[in-house]
């Protein structure tokens, strides 16, 4: 095989077939994929969760991961946020002509490792190659299917006044880790992206409480945007306390340097949960036992007023509105 990806690798001819059969198939090996039919076929019983996401992060390699790992865990997490057990994944690649096979190999191996960790099968996929300059090395779209256990009702519209808001760990890690690699910023940070699969954590939480009303992973737009989404969907107010929000020292420092607010920086391995008050302490305890939830914290409460808004009490006791992200805080990071 050649050292770099050429336009011909996406054209459907011999090179395309070589890429699929000699490169991807051995890595993602499973009975459904190996059929190599135009569609994957399987039976599913129950309520199905179905999600899709495109990954255009630039750069494609960053401390703590790469676009491949992101593409798998990001979609696994979207399924997990509905309480679903992830089952099947599709991976579509748009490769920029000239990407080295070496780099593609690393990404493909990341996808494989992530899929194995999340116990999700890659059952169908696609590869296209575009002219040099038309994709930042690589874009990935992944769609995921999972089954939601009966009796599970998690939605952004379910928050009720009195519920508590939990965040599963430190915020801003992913966004800052990616930013540190971007051209022109030139700073080094001792932090890695928090990119991680959260489906097991969610399963553990659901085991001990049936009163988990909302779940979301605060990716683009950060914690602030996710809380605003909940407030709007559920038509409630949310009050949080500045002092309770977990932020690592390095993220704090990087945000000071760049003039960012950690509340708006993306996360790829954290969740926000809104839980009925009587179950909150138990759920918090369970999250803290999980490897991805050690720094979890109760950060606030759901209120009736002001509807659709998020208010934060600052360390000095004053209150201010926390708006959604307006405009673009960071370049493409997921």
């Amino acid at each position, binding site marked *: 095989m050649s050292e770099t990806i050429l336009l011909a690798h996406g054209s459907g001819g011999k090179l395309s077939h070589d890429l699929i059969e000699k490169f991807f198939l051995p890595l993602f090996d499973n009975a459904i994929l190996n059929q190599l039919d135009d569609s994957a076929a399987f039976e599913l019983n129950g309520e199905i969760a179905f999600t899709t996401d495109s990954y255009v992060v630039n750069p494609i390699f960053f401390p703590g991961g790469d676009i491949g790992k992101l593409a798998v865990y990001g979609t696994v997490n979207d399924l997990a946020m509905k309480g679903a057990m992830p089952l099947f994944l599709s991976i579509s690649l748009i490769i920029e002509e000239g990407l080295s096979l070496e780099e593609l190999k690393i990404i493909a191996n990341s996808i494989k490792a992530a899929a194995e960790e999340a116990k999700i099968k890659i059952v169908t996929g696609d590869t296209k190659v575009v002219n040099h300059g038309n994709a930042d090395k690589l874009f990935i779209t992944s769609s995921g299917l999972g089954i939601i256990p009966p009796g599970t009702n998690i939605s952004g519209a379910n928050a009720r006044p009195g519920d508590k808001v939990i965040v599963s760990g430190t915020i801003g890690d992913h966004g800052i880790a990616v930013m540190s690699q971007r051209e022109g910023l*030139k*700073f*080094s*940070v*001792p*932090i890695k992206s928090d990119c991680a699969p959260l489906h097991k954590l969610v399963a553990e939480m659901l085991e001990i409480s049936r009163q988990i009303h909302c779940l979301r992973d605060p990716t683009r737009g950060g914690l602030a945007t996710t809380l605003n989404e909940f407030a709007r969907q559920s038509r409630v107010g949310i009050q949080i306390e500045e002092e309770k929000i977990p932020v690592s*020292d*390095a993220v*704090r*420092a*990087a945000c*000071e*340097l760049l*003039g960012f607010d950690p509340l708006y920086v993306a996360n790829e391995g954290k969740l926000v949960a809104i839980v009925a008050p009587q179950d909150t302490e138990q759920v918090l305890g369970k999250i803290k036992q999980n490897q991805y939830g050690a720094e979890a914290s109760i950060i606030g409460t759901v209120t009736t007023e002001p509807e659709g808004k998020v208010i934060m009490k600052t360390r000095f006791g004053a209150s201010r509105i926390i708006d959604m992200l307006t405009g673009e805080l960071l370049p493409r990071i997921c």
Partner: protein
Amino acid sequence: MCLAVPVRIVSIEGTNAEVEIGGVRRQVSLWLTPEARVGDYVLLHTGYAITVIDEAEAEQTLKLFEEMATIDEAH
């Protein structure tokens, strides 16, 4: 844009310095503060150190707050 961040100088090479804050490191220019030394804290503004921070004054200001607090509590 008037914002500047206090950072500590870790090493100096010519007119450039490597600085650190909370574990984050960056290269900055010392063109405006040629008197800066390793170990100094400087105010970083858009990639340049704009002044060397007077740590003694920082201590004094904090002491002023503490004393204010004590006087008030006495009332």
